[in-house]
């Protein structure tokens, strides 16, 4: 586990503090939200996930759901503001899908962003991803195992 390489696709934006990813849909309308593999390494297997209802509007930083992992429960804090337009029902019934396939089948919600241009600029993307991943990977390797 210590020497594993974390898969971090370069085609999306990341919330570095909460290890969430956001990817614009191919259609150009809306974005998908999920948890990245670095965050899952820290959390462990997910036992439960709850997500707010479709139609719920929220500001950046507000909870859009919550989860229970092997070691903790926690709020899923929105990296951007917007409105929930779709929830992944498969993940609600089988949260370990997130651990198994965090970037495809394990997505959480689709959002219609309220201020995408302004808020996405504060996320990690493009050339900033590599140094962030290197720093986070080094941090995980350096910490002692429980």
């Amino acid at each position: 586990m210590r020497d594993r390489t974390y898969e971090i696709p370069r085609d999306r934006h990341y919330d570095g503090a909460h290890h969430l990813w956001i990817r614009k849909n191919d259609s150009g309308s809306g974005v998908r939200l999920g948890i990245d593999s670095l965050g899952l390494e820290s959390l462990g297997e997910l036992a439960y996930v709850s997500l707010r209802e479709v139609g719920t509007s929220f500001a950046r930083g507000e909870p859009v759901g919550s989860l229970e992992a092997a070691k903790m429960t926690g709020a899923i804090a929105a990296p951007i503001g917007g409105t929930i337009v779709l929830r992944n029902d498969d993940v609600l019934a089988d949260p370990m899908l997130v651990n198994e396939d965090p970037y495809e089948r394990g997505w959480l919600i689709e959002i219609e962003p309220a201020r995408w241009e302004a808020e996405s600029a504060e996320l990690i993307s493009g050339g900033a991803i590599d140094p962030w991943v290197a720093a986070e990977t080094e941090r995980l390797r350096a910490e002692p195992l429980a």
Partner: protein
Amino acid sequence: MVWRLLQDDGVAAAAGLAADEALARRAGENGSPPTLRLYTYRPHAVLVGRFQDVEREVHVEAAEELGVELNRRPTGGGAILMGPDQLGVALTLHGRAGSPPPPGMVPPERARERMERFSDGLRRALASLGIEAAFRGKNDLEVDGRKIAGLGIHRDGSGGLLFHASLLIDLDVALMARVLRTPFVEITDAELDAVARRTTTVRELAGEGLSLADVRAHVARGFAASFDVALELGTLDSDERKEVAALTREKYETRDWVFQRTNVRDSTGTASIETSGGRIDVSVALAGRMIKAVNVRGDFFESEGALADLEGRLRWTPSEKAAVAKTVHRWARAHSTGTVEADPLARAVVSAAQRARGQGAPYGCFVTPGAREDRW
């Protein structure tokens, strides 16, 4: 550095939980100082884990007849009975990556290490009472395989952290059995004995005369030493009181919060395997694909403490073959005195889990003694 110490007794379930959540949120917003709260609930309250189904975990009618309050913690894990002899511990502090770390913590800590780090204060407190407790894989402190405290962590969206613990100073096992459901069988005298053997209490180990005040003082000193801070007795300020009152009313006193349900399906399954070391009987309760509870019995030789340790290690482990085998083999390396073998034991757990999920059992219910199945 100085942290605040809060002490309350006879707390109502909703207000007690609302205070913990509010203080965690405010700590994340730098609106409240790091706070260690040591408190007891008014008799009695059953608190289920964040995502548990109340009706599945609790004999609701019996609880109502007995005047036992029901509520839901923000932290995960199983249902617990709280009252004057169970010390609630709530440590709230800022935990967001990049923020100044609390003393003694390497920033920014991983969730996996936080539980053991936070439980160190309790471990030190118990050591000062002559009790050698150890952190067990997921969320328990145990003494020789017997649970003495349950642990949980909640991360608020603000970045605040809540470390929750319930320390068994004493335990009314008969009352617990009346209000909490077990996933496998109706409680019998034998089951009551088994529950009693798999838990222990501060008073059982350190003396019946030990008071709540004594234990609370030891716990406060344990946390102060663990985090290298001074604790100063304080109270909630007016803003905190208002926020706690609002959260009590708008969340923890509502049926929507207490009786909420998840989409994750619960299921149970059993399996028995004959081995050269004796028959292994396993019952498994799943939440989705995760093992929520497991019960291991049979006519093999193994100590009660070792079996309790195995069951504790398997809780909240994925029920897939690789994860179960890894956990069982680690357990077997730590307990080498019994006659039960790791491979068939792991097969029995996986088989029971597969039955629970309606997949059928690939190993059959009974295996010829000594026969070798395909290796793990």
